[in-house]
């Protein structure tokens, strides 16, 4: 599949399979099955996998664009796609030369497995870089039990990518990443997912019990993958989702103002001034996501990617700022779009309704809480000099 056709395909899926169900997915907090099935059908779940392993060899930029395209219609679909791609990118970048994972990636192309992430855990306070659970090795087999506070689309996923301490005596920051297969785990749902927004991601708490072969334990320490790949790629793909959500709200406001202008040609409606401000806000959001994306693609393709600027604390600070700024901007953009459309945006049954965009957009600052990120930055700034 050619790259540009990936984008075309994503547009069709967004229009024909995500948009028609977006309101029902939100209302009923149900998984966007039709959209995910369509993504599987078109092999978009393996888009990032290199061509030599059967994938489409898509770039991160293309995936971010697909997130935006999906996010304009259904933020939950976009977020599920983004979270799955974070797992795939991690496997491709850090395990593709390992025989077990090489075979797995080829199988993923064939069967379009949907991978969910299991990083959250009871008792670590939302900190991805700490685990309580540990891999227990018995010969060539391992077992692992994890009490996860949330697993997005856990019940609908095929396979899981799980963080855990490397062994029973490992420090809580000495983590491995382990892929566990559908046939080898059970999930016991421990609560509900009845939230304001992002309802279709279906992210309740689960108790996971898993086993597998030791080859499934990735060799690279999670800490290395986290700084270099997981964190920046997450913020960039989420950035695409948020751009989609913001653009959907702004486009409703644009349509509303055009309608006002058409009903009274010759005068510029007062809302047009607010719209001019709003479009500028959206442009700033787009520019900051794009700038970080371009820089990341350059740095990760460089020969010193493993030890260079990506693992520097200056770079962590920058990506953290992208996350905080973008997620603060998103609700402000939606609220401004709402104020332009007025009561028609406030009504749930109007084509200008902002309800879903606003509720979805409010998740952004909480999904990895901004205060946690700012606290990290505050710590980093104690040694950074901008020299």
């Amino acid at each position, binding site marked *: 599949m050619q790259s540009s056709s990936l984008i075309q395909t994503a547009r069709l899926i967004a229009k024909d399979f995500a948009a028609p169900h977006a309101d029902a997915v939100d209302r009923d907090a149900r998984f966007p099955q039709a959209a995910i099935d369509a993504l599987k059908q078109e092999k978009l779940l393996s888009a990032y996998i290199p061509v030599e392993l059967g994938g489409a060899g898509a770039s991160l930029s293309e995936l971010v664009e697909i997130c935006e395209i999906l996010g304009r219609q259904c933020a939950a679909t976009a977020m599920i796609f983004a979270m799955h791609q974070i797992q795939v990118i991690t496997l491709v970048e850090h395990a593709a030369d390992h025989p077990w994972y090489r075979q797995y990636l080829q199988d993923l192309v064939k069967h379009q497995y949907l991978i969910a992430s299991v990083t959250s855990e009871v008792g670590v306070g939302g900190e991805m*870089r*700490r685990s309580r659970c540990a891999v227990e090795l018995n010969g060539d087999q391992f077992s692992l039990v994890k009490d996860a506070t949330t697993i997005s689309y856990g019940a609908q996923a095929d396979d899981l990518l799980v963080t855990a301490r*490397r062994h029973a005596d*490992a*420090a*809580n*920051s*000495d983590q491995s990443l382990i892929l566990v297969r559908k046939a080898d785990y059970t999930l016991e749902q421990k609560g509900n997912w009845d939230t304001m927004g992002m309802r279709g991601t279906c992210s309740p708490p689960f108790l996971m019990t898993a086993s597998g072969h030791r080859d499934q334990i990735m060799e690279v*320490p999670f*800490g*290395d993958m986290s*700084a270099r790949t997981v964190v920046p790629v997450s913020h960039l793909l989420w950035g695409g989702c948020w751009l989609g959500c913001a653009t959907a709200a702004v486009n409703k406001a644009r349509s509303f103002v055009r309608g006002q202008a058409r009903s009274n040609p010759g005068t510029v409606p007062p809302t047009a001034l607010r719209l001019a401000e709003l479009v500028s806000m959206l442009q700033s959001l787009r520019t900051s996501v794009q700038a970080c994306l371009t820089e990341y693609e350059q740095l990760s393709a460089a020969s010193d990617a493993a*030890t*260079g*600027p990506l*693992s*520097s*604390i*200056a770079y*962590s600070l920058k990506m953290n700022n992208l996350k905080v700024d973008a997620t603060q901007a998103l609700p402000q953009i939606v609220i401004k779009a709402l104020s332009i459309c007025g009561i028609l945006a406030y009504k749930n049954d109007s084509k200008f309704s902002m309800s879903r965009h606003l509720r979805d957009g409010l998740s952004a600052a909480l999904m990895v809480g901004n205060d946690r990120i700012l606290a*990290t930055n505050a*710590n*980093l700034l*104690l*040694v*950074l*000099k*901008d*020299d």
Partner: protein
Amino acid sequence: MSKEKIRQVLKEQGKFSTDIDSLSDDADLYEAGMTSHASVNVMLALEDAFDLEFPDRMLKRSVFESINAIHAAIEELSA
């Protein structure tokens, strides 16, 4: 000499779950339990103990991953 001083700083600021004296000079400090947060405290304390400032280009994972790596960085700055 300075490796001993580095060990002392790590003992005070590294928040290791294991005994720092049991670690070799090239042992991976992150594997031994040093978090990103603790590593910043280690950087601050090293700057104070050795009366130097790490430039931003040195503030990355690999420079602080072992006693030997830290020692090399300090040598480079003191040269």
